[in-house]
């Protein structure tokens, strides 16, 4: 799998991998020509499929250990002499069998003008002539402009519980603003005023994550 920068027609380079966190890997790619960046999130099944192939996203950083895969993947294995089991994936929240996380995010983008859409690149069939020229390459983690109104609770009335904020802190920094925004949209649409870990888990399930 590879990602191409449509503007530059260049293959994007892998920049960073974080996780798995709650079964999801976060992978950041950047275009070497224009610096444009995209983040890819995997759901637990996609993460597990990569693990099952015994390959490392981002490449290997340590030499291969004998039977490293079997020892790290056995759920009920016994310790073998001279080798310990590798750490397991952390437990995940409730999972949903529904679709791909990207489709959920794309839907959010479609429902919320400007939420996810790439700055400087209007959606197909949409004109952005009236919009001010945005910075085509905002820094990672830089907050985007507030999104438009959604049905239900206005975003301004949403609050995050301390537990939910702590859980959000576990999300890699470069995708945190997008995750925050997605969960706020989910909460607003479902009439929640306080975002708790339970609401986050529900949103995660709805996103197919």
């Amino acid at each position, binding site marked *: *799998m*590879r990602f191409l920068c449509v503007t530059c027609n260049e293959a994007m380079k892998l920049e960073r991998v974080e996780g798995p966190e709650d079964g999801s890997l976060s992978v950041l790619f950047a275009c070497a020509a224009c610096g444009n960046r995209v983040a890819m999130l995997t759901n637990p099944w996609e993460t*597990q499929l990569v693990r099952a192939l*015994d*390959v490392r996203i981002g490449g290997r950083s340590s030499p*291969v250990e004998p039977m490293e895969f079997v020892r790290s993947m056995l759920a009920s294995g016994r310790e*073998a*002499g001279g080798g310990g089991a590798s750490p397991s994936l952390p437990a*995940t929240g409730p999972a949903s069998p529904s679709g791909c996380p990207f489709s959920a995010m794309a839907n959010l983008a479609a429902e919320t003008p400007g939420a996810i859409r790439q700055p400087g690149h209007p959606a197909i069939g949409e004109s952005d002539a009236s919009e001010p020229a945005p910075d085509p390459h905002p820094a990672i983690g830089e907050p985007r402009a507030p999104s438009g109104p959604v049905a239900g609770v206005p975003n301004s009335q949403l609050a995050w519980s301390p537990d939910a904020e702590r859980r959000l802190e576990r999300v890699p920094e470069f995708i945190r603003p997008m995750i925050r925004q997605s969960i706020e949209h989910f909460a607003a649409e479902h009439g929640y005023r306080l975002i708790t870990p339970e609401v986050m888990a529900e949103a995660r399930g709805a996103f197919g994550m």
Partner: protein
Amino acid sequence: MGDAGSGVASQLQDQTLRLHGRMAAIRHKVAILSGKGGVGKSTLTSNLAAALAEGGARAAVLDADLHGPALAKMLGVRGAALRFGPDGVEPPEAPPGIKVLSMDQLLRRDEAPLRWKAPTSEGDFVWRASAEAAALREFLSDTHWGALDFLLIDLAPGTDKISTLASLLPKIGAAIVVTLPTEVSQLTVRKSITLATELWGASVVGVVENMAGYRCGRCGHEERLFQGPDSAAMAREMGVSFLGRIPFDPGLAEAADRGAPYVRQARETPCAAALRAVAAALRSFVERPA
């Protein structure tokens, strides 16, 4: 064009190189398969290994039945822990010098089924076959087999297991297809022969008929146990070799329970003689001129 920096293709290539490097020291890789369950693949594997080792061959067995491993028990090394040495995992040895590797040696408890760690068990069919292929590859490539004459690989039932092994080992010395002289058994076995022939070539496929007959312990009278079709005729019809028949003998199962190959425990029985004859036929089969 690369894959943006993960080097997945080169990681997979490294896995293949590791596997082929390990396999290079093994003269004959032999798959024991059937496609059908309960035909005696593991019993045949353990006894063939013992017969080959007693005949002076350097032999090892790999229990590729990850979900129903039995070879460690049959060869009496169930309690032996695997050790990690500089050249990989050191497999225990069963008399008379058979190296044994089985998933059984990695599972914690007798009643523990094989389970993989996963964030959720939901949808595990998506990745489980890949995980099992990766485990089998590691068993082959990360075990310190040393220089061997024979590595016998005991496959689980299911024709899909043949494809998995062939993807790891595109060339093998022999594929022994075990069948019973029954129509039901041969219905599945024929599929396995077709697949093994397509993947490895008809010249390496040989059929062994198990439970071929029964000799009365009191009077010595011999009877056919099943009245089904002749397995040698099936082999001929499908253009593959026939390597021999093993008579039914309850002592085989009792010896397996004790962890001792029957071929060493009851040397004078017709069954042990038949097992030695199949081992000799296998040896001739893999060492015949191309």
